[in-house]
Each structure stands twice: as C-alpha cells, then as structure tokens.
C-alpha cells in the first residue's frame, strides 16, 4: 500500500510504530474507499471573459460525470444559449436534446435534433440580466467512457434574468450524444457571447 502521510519518528520507544500502524490502516481504507462522488477538477472561477472552456484528459475510470456550472454570458441580451460539445464535436447529427423550461408566462418543451452542440436552450443570463446573477447548472453525462454506446445526459438549471416572475425560469431536460466514441473532453460555450468573468465550474466523477 502507499504511504502518503509522513510517518512518525520514534521519540519514545515503540510509540511511533503504534501510531503509524493506525495511520497506515486509515490511509489504506481511504484509498480503497475514496468516496463515490468526488472532484476531477478544482472549482475554478474565471478572471476574464472566455469564448469557451474545454476540460480535457478526462479519465475513463468512472461510471458517469457531473459538470457543475455557475455561469453567465456576455451577450448583449437578457439570455444566451449554452452548448456542450463532448470531444469538441460539432456534428449536427449527433445532437439530441429535450428541453423543458417553465416560468409564470411560458411552459416550453422543445426538442432539438441538430446544432453544433448539445443545446441547453436560453439558460444563460446575458449582459442585460441583473448584474452578478449566474445560472446554476448540473449536467450529468452517463456511459461517457463507452466506446460502443451512445451517451445519455440529463441536466437541471435556473435562470434569473430579473425579479419578475415571468423572467425567473426553471430548466430541466436530457438527451443523447449519438457518437459511440469515448468522451475524453467536455467543451462548453455560449451560443452567441462569451463566458463572462466570474463564471465558475468544476467537473465531478460518479464511481
């Protein structure tokens, strides 16, 4: 087994060996049971606007991925769309999304079967939305490591454009990325603008 902690050095005869035995048992148990859900990347906050972000080098060792975003667009409008491209793929025939959106003025269920990415719809607040209001989004991707199966996803999110009930929108949905290639990177970008400064993100694993 690994020894990642710093072993105690004996001060009094026998004491170090006794404690180190227990520490080693604890460390072995942590490594054998690292927790089923955990971070792949650190939680990162943008210091400047970015056209897109790509998380690459994703290990195929897990069962599913969770991309968690707190994100906003620079588009000169109240909202912008969000596209997610596994392996930076832009093949329209691979992209299927069912989006459901609801606020007090609109209930919308839309299928998107094309586009340059998996289209989560108008989920991003734009530059005309209230300042500092970012959209929280959870995006689950299943079967991502398979080299033979299509990849299913589900997502949840919320958009707060302003304080009027008609401009507070709940989102959820799912879909399929039809490619059978294993996913080793995830790229996300707004449909029109850039990802605004202060947006943040992290990638998690399900084991």
């Amino acid at each position: 087994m690994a020894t990642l902690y710093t072993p105690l050095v004996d001060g009094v005869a026998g004491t170090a060996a006794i404690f180190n035995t227990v520490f080693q048992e604890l460390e072995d148990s942590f490594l054998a049971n690292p927790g089923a859900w955990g971070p792949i990347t650190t939680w990162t906050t943008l210091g400047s606007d970015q056209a897109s972000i790509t998380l690459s080098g994703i290990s195929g060792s897990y069962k599913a991925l969770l991309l968690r975003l707190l994100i906003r667009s620079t588009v000169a409008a109240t909202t912008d769309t969000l596209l997610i491209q596994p392996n930076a793929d832009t093949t329209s025939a691979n992209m299927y999304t069912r989006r459901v959106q609801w606020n007090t003025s609109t209930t919308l269920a839309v299928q998107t079967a094309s586009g340059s990415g998996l289209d989560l719809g108008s989920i991003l607040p734009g530059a005309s939305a209230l300042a500092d209001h970012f959209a929280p989004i959870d995006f689950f991707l299943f079967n991502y490591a398979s080299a033979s199966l299509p990849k299913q996803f589900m997502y949840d999110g919320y958009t707060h454009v302003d304080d009027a009930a008609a401009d507070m929108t709940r989102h959820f949905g799912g879909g399929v990325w039809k490619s059978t290639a294993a996913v080793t990177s995830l790229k996300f970008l707004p449909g029109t603008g850039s990802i605004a400064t202060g947006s943040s993100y992290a990638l998690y694993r399900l084991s």
Partner: protein
Amino acid sequence: MSQLFFTNVQSGVGNPKAHFGQEVFNPVFVGLEQGAFYQSGYYNISGWTTLGADSGAVTISGISQIWRHLRLVGLFRSTQGAVVDNMFIWLGGATSLYYNSFRWHNSAISTISGAGLSARIAANSAPANHFSPVILDIFNYQSTDVHPFLLRAYTHGSDTDANMTAVMSWGSARGAAAVSYLQLTCSSNIKSESMYALYGKDY
C-alpha cells in the same frame, strides 16, 4: 454514522495498540475516517451492477440504516414490445405504501397517487443501445412514516419529438416501515445491460 474500515484500538495485553487509551484515540480516528467520506458526500452502497440477463425485477436489499438519504442512479431499458415503458420503483417493495407525487412530464403536469414511483424508460422498439438515465433521491428513508423523494429521468424512445421525454417528479411515500430494500419492475423485463448503483448520503 457510519461505516468504519480501520481496526479499533483495543485494550489488552499483547496488543501493541493497548498502550494508549482507546477512549481517547478511537474518536479521533473515527473523525478522520468520516472526514474522508464527507469529502465526497456519497458512499456507494451497492457497487455498480450491470444485468447479465433480462430480469423481471431488480431488488436491492439489505440497505443499512446508517445513512441519512439514499440516491439511486441507473441506466435502464425495458424488453416491452413498444417504444417506451413505465418502470416502477417500490420503496421497500411495499405496494401498501401510499405514493403521492407531482409529475412534470415534458410540458404536461399531473398529480399521481397510489402507484409506485414511475419513470418512463426506453423499450424494445427504441433505438438500439439507448438506455434511460434515472436519478432518484429518497430522503428520510429511515423514517417509519414519510419518505419524500425527487425523481429525474430522460427517455429517448426515438429521434422524434413525441418520444423524447424528460420527467421530473416529486412527492412522498407514506408507510409504516423504514426502507430496507428497493424493487424495480416494468411491464415486461428490465433489459440486460441495464445498470445501477445505490448511494448513501450522510448529511
């Protein structure tokens, strides 16, 4: 909590750990071990299971009562001769539980009562190899009264609008027992290569 993996320090002649008071050190070690699990928040109770053959029912039994909440995650498909099928999830396998939920199914909303939790999943006539993701959160599963839940699912029955379905439902299951096992059924069999895992959450 919880599940312990290290060997407790014990008193006793001949035990090298006995030089130190177990009542002093064991709480520290327990805290360290719990801290490691808290970093992820979820513990995989069942491991990931992939069905090797079509199955009339999937049962996850012997669920320890040491967690605060449960989360079931899976990819499912039915062998029913249709585009989609309903999969029912019974908490404790008890049809006597009273299920009461609000379901948001694409743009349609409805209330459902009396049946198990239902998630629409892809069936035999759906595109090959398309399994339906399901995430079910069960809160207060140790309670002998009310088990609130939140279920999310997506079904790709075909590439056309009518058969791409996103579902979110929430509600409660009421009964007189804690949840110690889950049972999943559908109109026909749950298809081989469906897979699932059950997680425990400690806070």
